[in-house]
C-alpha cells in the first residue's frame, strides 16, 4: 500500500479527477494549498505596492491505494495535470503502514478498496 500525494495546478484539478475516475481510482481527498516549487514569481501591483507572489495556489490530492493501483494513479495524475510548463506540480509516493475503515473496522487492503454505491 502506498500514499500517493499529488500537487497540481488548480485549473487542472478537474482533469485529474476525470483521469482518476477513468483509472477507477475512487478514494481520495483534496485540499487547496499554497506552495513554491522553483517557478518564476508572479508580480502584482496594488496601488503603490509592488509584490512578488512567492506562493502559488495548488490543489493537493491524497490517494491511498493498494500496490496494483500505484502506477495507474501516478499515470492519471500526470495525464490530468501536465501542461508542459514550469509549475505543473509534483507527485510523492510514500509507504503506508496501516489503513483502517472507520465504519467497519476493516484494515489495510480491504480499507483502501472503495465499496460500490
Amino acid at each position, binding site marked *: 500500500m502506498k500514499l500517493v500525494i499529488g500537487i497540481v495546478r488548480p485549473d487542472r484539478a478537474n482533469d485529474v479527477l476525470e483521469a482518476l475516475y477513468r483509472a477507477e481510482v475512487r478514494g481520495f481527498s483534496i485540499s487547496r494549498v499554497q506552495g513554491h516549487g522553483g517557478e518564476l514569481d508572479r508580480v502584482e501591483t496594488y496601488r503603490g505596492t509592488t509584490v*512578488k507572489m512567492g506562493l502559488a495556489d495548488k490543489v493537493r490530492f491524497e490517494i491511498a491505494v493498494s500496490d496494483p493501483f500505484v502506477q495507474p494513479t501516478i499515470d492519471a495524475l500526470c495525464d490530468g495535470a501536465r501542461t508542459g510548463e514550469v509549475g505543473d506540480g509534483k507527485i510523492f509516493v510514500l509507504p503506508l503502514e496501516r489503513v483502517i475503515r472507520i465504519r467497519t473496522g476493516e484494515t489495510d487492503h480491504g480499507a483502501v478498496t472503495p465499496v460500490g454505491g
Partner: protein
Amino acid sequence: MTPFAAAPLSAGDTAWMLAATALVLMMTPALGLFYAGLVRAKNTLNTFMMCIAAIAVAAVTWAAVGYSLAFDGTGDLIGGLGNAFLHGVTFAPREGTAIPELLFMAFQATFCIITVALISGAVVERMRFGPFLLFAALWSVCVYAVLAHWAFGGGWLLEGGTLDFAGGVPVEMGSGFSALAAALVVGARKDYGRQALLPHNAVYVLLGAGLLWFGWFGFNGGSGFSAGHSGVLAFTNTLLTPACTLVVWFLLDLLRGRQVTAIGAATAIIVGCVAITPAGGYVSPGWAMALGALAAVPSYAVILWRPRTHVDETLDVLAAHGVAGMTGILFIGFVAQQSWNEVSDGLFYGHAGQLGWQALAALAAPAYAFCATFLLLRLIAAVTPLRGTERQEALGMDVVHHGEEAYASGEGAILVAPEAGVEAEVAVAQP
C-alpha cells in the same frame, strides 16, 4: 418623448433628473457586482473592470460624437454632428422637456454606459481587456447611438410611432442581441460544456441585482424627463413589475426543481426591470403587473435552453435583456392606454397600428444590433486577437490583464523595493 410644448426650465424636473442621472450611473458598478458574482473567483476583477471600463470609454465617446449622432436632428437613420464635442449643449432646455440640455445629455450618457457594460456579460472570462476597450468605443458610437436615434432622437421608429419609454430598443434589445453576436464571434470558454463553470459568490449577485433595481427607479422614473405623470407611472411600475416577475420565477423554479434559487431570484429582478423599461410610462399599473408575470416565462425558457447549446453567451444577456426587452416592447402594442400615457392606445384599446410599430421595432433593433456587432468584432479580430492563450484563460483574467487578485492573501508576497528598479525585469510567470 413626452410631447410638451417648448417650456421654460422647471426646477422640480431638473432636481429629479439630477438625482435620476446619478441613480442610473450607479447601475453600472452594480452590474459589475452582479456579473462578478456570476463568474469564477479568478476572473472577478476583470469582469468588474469591464463595467468600469464602460464608464470610462462610453462617457468619452458619448460626449465626443455619440450624443450628437443620437440626438441632433431628425434624420431617419442617424443624427447629425451639430452637437459633436457637446457644441451647443448648454443650460437651455432640451426640446420637449423642461430640463437643461446639458443634463439631458448626461442622463442619456449613463444609458449608453450601462448598455456597453451589459454586453461584457457575453464575453467575460476570456476576452482580452484591450480589444474590449476598443470594442466598447466603437460599439457605443456605431450601434448604441444609432439605435438611440431610432427610438429616442427623432429616427424612423420614433417618427413612425414606436413607443419605447426608457430603452427597450437601444438598451435592452440592443445589448441582448449584440451579446449573442459577441458570444458567437469571441467563441466559448475553453472549458465550456466540459466542466461545471459555477458562480463564485451568490451574495454579490443578489446585492448587485438589488442595487440595479434601486438604480432602475432613476432609469425608468427619469425617462419622462419630468416629475410629472409619466415619470410617476414608470417609477411605480418599476416597483410592481419585477415583484410579479419574482413571484412567477419562484413558481417556475418550484415546478422545475422543487426549490427556489437565489441566483434565479436575482435574474428575475433583472428580467422584470427590463420588461417594464420600454413600457414603464405607457401602461397601467395593472397591466405592468401582468407584464411582470408574463415576461418571466420566455426569459426562463431561454435561460434553460441556452446552456444546452454550444453558444457560450456566458451571463445570459440575451435571455435577461434581449428577450425580456422584446416582451416589453411587444406588450405595449397590446395594452398601451391613452388614459394613462396621453400618447397612444394599444390593440386592446382600439389601435391595432400600435402593435405593428412595436413589432417592427422588435425585428429591426435585434437585426441591426446583431449584424453590426458581428461585423464590428470581426473587424477588431482582424487587427488584434480577441482572446488570449488557453494557459492565460486557465490562469484567470485578473492576474493576466490586471496583475491583481480579488482575494489576494498576502502570504508569501515579497515586497519589491521601488528604488531597486528591477520589477520590470521579473517575468510574469505561471504559478
